[in-house]
């Protein structure tokens, strides 16, 4: 049974540490994330949620320990393979990370362009996803002229437009009113239903309660066994 589960793990962390100088942001994290799981990472401000996600997409290297993604060991991956690894992920960054000098449309389209999707296909997909998050009318606006929630929706559109295998969403509804939030949430649920693994970092207990699913708690960089498993 455990063997079965292990085979199904798409992300595996073994005794992962991450420290910045003397500050320990993550301490001895061992965690399996299974294919098509809907996982919450929760914990108070500064617990290490964002740091954990960063390690997964190689935004930063681990200080110690091993991470396997789909069987690949991240510490053994060569520099020029990193972009290909990252194309498995759709990431909603906590601070959105939209390109200020590109329009909403371009910000979303660039994901597809970077992986070589044909122009016509790009147009179709981008327009569709912008319609889904309710940003189609602002498609030629630049991010600094968007409201916080609008920026967040563009960030989500960019994360899901490429149909990634894994979605990493860091506080994806922090700037949204409850209505928009549940809408976005259903969107992520939909992506999950279509086969993606979804990992959401959030401190919003309401949200977690409403949804259900496995929750792991981080507290000062340590993993606490989830009462929800």
């Amino acid at each position: 049974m455990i063997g079965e589960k292990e085979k199904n793990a798409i992300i595996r962390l073994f005794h992962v540490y991450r420290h910045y100088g003397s500050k320990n942001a993550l301490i001895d994290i061992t965690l399996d994330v299974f294919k098509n799981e809907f996982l919450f990472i929760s914990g108070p401000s500064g617990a290490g949620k964002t740091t954990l996600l960063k390690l997964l997409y190689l935004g930063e290297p681990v200080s110690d320990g091993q991470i396997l993604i789909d069987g690949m060991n991240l510490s053994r991956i060569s520099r020029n393979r990193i972009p290909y690894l990252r194309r498995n992920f759709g990431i909603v960054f906590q601070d959105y990370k939209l390109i200020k000098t590109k329009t909403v449309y371009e910000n979303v389209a660039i994901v597809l362009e970077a992986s070589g999707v044909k122009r016509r296909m790009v147009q179709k997909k981008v327009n569709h996803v912008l319609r889904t998050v309710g940003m189609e009318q602002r498609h030629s606006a630049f991010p600094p002229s968007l409201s916080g929630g609008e920026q967040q929706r563009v960030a989500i559109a960019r994360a899901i437009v490429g149909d990634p295998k894994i979605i990493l969403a860091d506080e994806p509804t922090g700037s949204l009113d409850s209505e928009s939030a549940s809408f976005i949430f259903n969107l992520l649920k939909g992506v999950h239903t279509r086969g993606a693994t979804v990992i959401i970092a959030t401190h919003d207990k309401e949200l977690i309660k409403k949804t259900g699913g496995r929750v792991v708690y981080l507290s000062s960089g340590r993993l606490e066994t989830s009462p929800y498993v």
Partner: protein
Amino acid sequence: MIRLFYKRAIQDIRENRFLNTVTIITIALSILIVSVFALFFINTNDLINHWKKGIRVVVYLKTNTSEAMIPDIKKKFEEMYGVSEAVFISKEEALEQLKRQIKSQISLLEDLKENPLPDAFEVRMIPSSQSWEKVETLSDKIESLPYVDDVEYGEKWLGRFTNIVNLFRLTGYGVGGLFFMAAVFIVANTIRLVLYSRREEIEIMRLIGAADSFIKFPFYIQSLIQSTLGGILGLGILFIAFTIIASNVEHGFLPGSFQIRFLPPAVFFSIVISSMLVGWLGCYLSLKQFLRI
């Protein structure tokens, strides 16, 4: 794919207008500096060469040389390496010249019964081959000819001046090279600054899985466009300034036959090509720096 990159580069230029304007202006100024110096140097050099055309070697023929041989001798001289022209000066002309030369002591020559001067040739040299040593070699070679009595060339100051001209040329090339390097660094620095203010964007592209080449390509195209425009702009300014100045200066200052000239096409195009190379290089180095981490 190339079309996409090209489109992205153009878009980018539009979207980052301020950065692009600044880059193009800086490149134009750097090119202007290098090309102004090139123009200054080329024309000064031309002028010196023009003036140095005065350098000549006077060959006195033996008194028994028959007039029939003159054309052959002339040909002989003109075939020599470094010689541009050999002009025959008969002894009668020579005496006239001498009279003119020492005009205040003319009484001295007044009572000559016969012309004691020999026939002579004035051998003019090709400007480029007028280093002092070459003149010397040539004169030795001429002196060993059977029908030649004596060779007289230049004066002391001419030798000294040749050295000065060589020094001027050498430092001119040095200074030009230094300016070129300075321009390269300035352009590279500017591009680094521009990329620095866009490092967030570069970082974001990498995070969403864009390969380095995908990120770099538009920057390359863009900096090629910038440096080509900058180069043309810089040379354009130079040309306009040159036209205005040339038409005012020429009459007052220059010796009649000399014409100041614009950069020759070869230099012009070399500068444009260099400009493109520099833009490309600056882009390459900066991208390397910002994509390393």
